[in-house]
């Protein structure tokens, strides 16, 4: 939204804007935040993100931080993790959370959905093998319940098992007793969350990002 005004001194913004879809104002605000987080350096490290005080009480903080350094989120073909990221990669990760535009066609909307679900999938699939195994899913649920102590651990296992069973039932349907369900593939994941309206749920309003108030 908004007309593309070029901000003097930042010609690279237009490339970033094309690549990620943010407007110039949004990019400049996020750039300010990036510089704040990285203490005016050019690259961001994991410690910089861990140092954000508000993030400390988030149960899935480790995964969120990991997601920023996961190369699969930068472009679909890469793999592995990096130790530091530049502003461009920061912006690319953030672009996964842009709300869909009202005037999108069906295919665009579908690709936005896939994009966001891919991001979520990558967050769960920590060993990069393309499937979310039972162990990984258990880990996810455990992290979510990590604040409940011992009670959480046992129930987390049960919850993860039940969830896995559900996925298997929905995606595969019939399985012989000695077949083995390897894990949730991306297609199954898509099918699982098909009714979830993710393109609207997984969005942040970048309109009014005002970094002056926060640390």
């Amino acid at each position, binding site marked *: 939204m908004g007309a593309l005004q070029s901000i003097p001194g930042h010609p690279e913004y237009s490339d970033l804007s094309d690549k990620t879809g943010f407007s110039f104002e949004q990019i400049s605000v996020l750039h300010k935040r990036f510089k704040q987080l990285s203490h005016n350096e050019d690259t961001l490290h994991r410690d910089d993100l861990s140092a954000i005080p508000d993030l400390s009480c988030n149960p899935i903080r480790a995964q*969120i931080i990991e997601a920023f350094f996961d190369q699969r989120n930068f472009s679909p073909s890469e793999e592995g993790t990096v130790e530091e990221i530049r502003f461009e990669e920061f912006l690319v990760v953030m672009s996964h959370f842009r709300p869909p535009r009202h005037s999108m066609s069906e295919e665009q909307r579908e690709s936005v959905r896939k994009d966001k679900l891919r991001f979520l999938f990558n967050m769960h699939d920590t060993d990069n093998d393309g499937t979310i195994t039972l162990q990984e899913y258990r880990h996810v649920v455990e992290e979510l319940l990590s604040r409940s102590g011992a009670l959480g651990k046992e129930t987390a296992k049960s919850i993860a098992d039940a969830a896995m*069973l559900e996925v298997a039932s929905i995606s595969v349907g019939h*399985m012989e007793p000695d077949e083995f369900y390897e894990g949730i593939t991306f297609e199954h994941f898509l099918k699982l969350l098909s009714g979830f309206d993710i393109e609207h749920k997984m969005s942040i309003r970048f309109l009014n990002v005002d970094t002056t108030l926060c640390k």
Partner: protein
Amino acid sequence: PVLDLNYEHVQTPFEISLWVLLASLMKLGFHLIPRVSNIVPESCLLIVVGLLVGGLIRLAGEEVPPVMNAEVFFLCLLPPIILDAGYFLPIRPFMENLGTILMFAVVGTLWNAFFIGGLLFAVCQINPGYPLELHQLELLPCLLFGSIISAVDPVAVLAVFEEIHINELLHILVFGESLLNDAVTVVLYHLFEEYAGAGTVTVLDGFLGIMSFLVVALGGVLVGAIYGLLAAFTSRFTSHMRVIEPLFVFVYSYMAYLSAEMFHLSGIMALIACGAVMKPYVEANISHKSHTTIKYFLKMWSSVSETLIFIFLGVATVDGKHHSWNWVFVTATVILCLVARVMGVVGLTYIINKFRIVKLTTKDQFIIAYGGLRGAIAFSLGFLLDEVHFPKKDMFLTAIITVIFFTVFVQGMTIKPLVELLAVKKKQEAKRSINEEIHTQFLDHLLTGIEDICGHYGHHHWKDKLNRFNKKYVKRCLIAGDRCEEPQLIAFYHKMEMKQAIELVEKGGAKMPAIPSTVSMQNIQPKKAVPQERMLGQLSKGKEEEIRNILRTNLQRTRQRLHSYNRHTLVADPFEDGVILRKKNVMEKKVWILLNKTEIRNRQIFGFFFAYSMKPTADDVPTIHVDLASPQSPDSVNLVDELKKKSEPTSDADEGLVMRAPSQNRSEESDREQQKLMRCLSDPGPNADEDEDEPFLP
């Protein structure tokens, strides 16, 4: 005299009961004639019934009873409906759309009131050359009339929208608007009433009006919230007196309503706030039966109230002495209402869409505009008008009734076909799955994290802060025992399990799998040899032993007696069947007690009971063999998954509960037995509660 008639003695309660009976019978009747109830919404039918009854009374020569007096309506008929709505308000969508709802409720109603009032005044003033009674109508009464007629009515909206099953977003928008505009209506009503008495209006009065609005709205919410917290706190201590738990919910809410009305605050908002605030805490504290009681009582009362309201509307229409028909005024009102509504909705949506992520489409706007039904609240408010200050009261009432009839009949009847025609998204009946719940929570945390990284204190940040505050301080005060530590995911999971368990028991004999799949836990567990987990891992060892002992003793005793029982060949002796069942019942009850005593809901034990059945063994080793209940239904597998072992049962007594894969041939008797077992299990019976206090474990 042996037999005497003394009607006056019982007159009032008798008449009330007759009306309630009539209302309920009518409701029954409509559902017996499905064709009519598909085309015509219930509310219309009820109004027609009211008309008929009123007509009959008039024909009989009697005076039509003034049933629709404002007191009865506001104090008795309205609260149950609103409480029902508030207690079961879906909080998440309501909060997500709160901005939109407030815009429609406040700004929309204000716009409607002034537009209708102002233009009506203009209409009345035209034709100066042709003196009409309308010319006597001043601006203020017109504005007051506008404010009465402009409010969307929650009762009517509920009645009509219930039947069209529209998608959640639209439902909550229109319904939320109808609830929240009460504050605006109350303020405008009292303001204009005062001014009409005073005669002149100044700017200061306008300013006071705005202040008054804030006080009314926020005050109402505050009163409701206080009573809600009180109710939640009280429910913390009711563990020994489960029977009166529902009473607290009802009485505190009604008191909230009355207290708010006492101070001329918005009673509806107080009631909504009370219900919404107390629900999460009360639900965590009360027993399952109390929860069911509350649910059914609320539904029952609100249903009867709604029916009565519509019937009374019909009766009051027939009551001729309050009517004065004036073509110009009435038609102008109806048209202006429609126009104002459409313009208001379109204009507001244009502004609102700039701030929403999920934009409102034209279809949505049409439904919102079309769903703006007026109802009995408008009529009662009109009834309350003072004749001295408002000489045109009768004309107002007629106009109000006409608008109500128009909206309820015309709009109510046509909205369903229009929804179909426009292919508006309907409500999704899909059950919440555990995966969606996990991901909802995950997304909440993810988005909060991203917002923190962005440095943006947005929605999610504040919601997260509120949740943490809630968890840390509020829950600790208001929720009894260790339930306050239970995170939402676990609570959801347990609820889901309970539901599945109950469903399974109900379907146990029918063999209708909900999910047509044969996927079971085996398929998911990694093939590598996992060290056999202790099946009862969550219980302490001592309790395990207890359970095992009980089961063993009971089983051994019965097994010894029925040594020759072979379910494949023998027809079960009914007497012995009974004995087995009784033993099973006793045992089930004991373990139910155990379950209730330990706060840990061990679903493995739970699951065990669905699978329990007698199996003959050749050897006398006291092993307990457990079978799966209905092999086809994967739900049963779901529950007993942790207990499932591969193929052969071990004969090691210390192994504890041993599971076997479902055998392929099951005879009829065992199925019957299963069914009986299921039925017994589904309701531990009234005695179970009494046994709760019995010290079971020494």
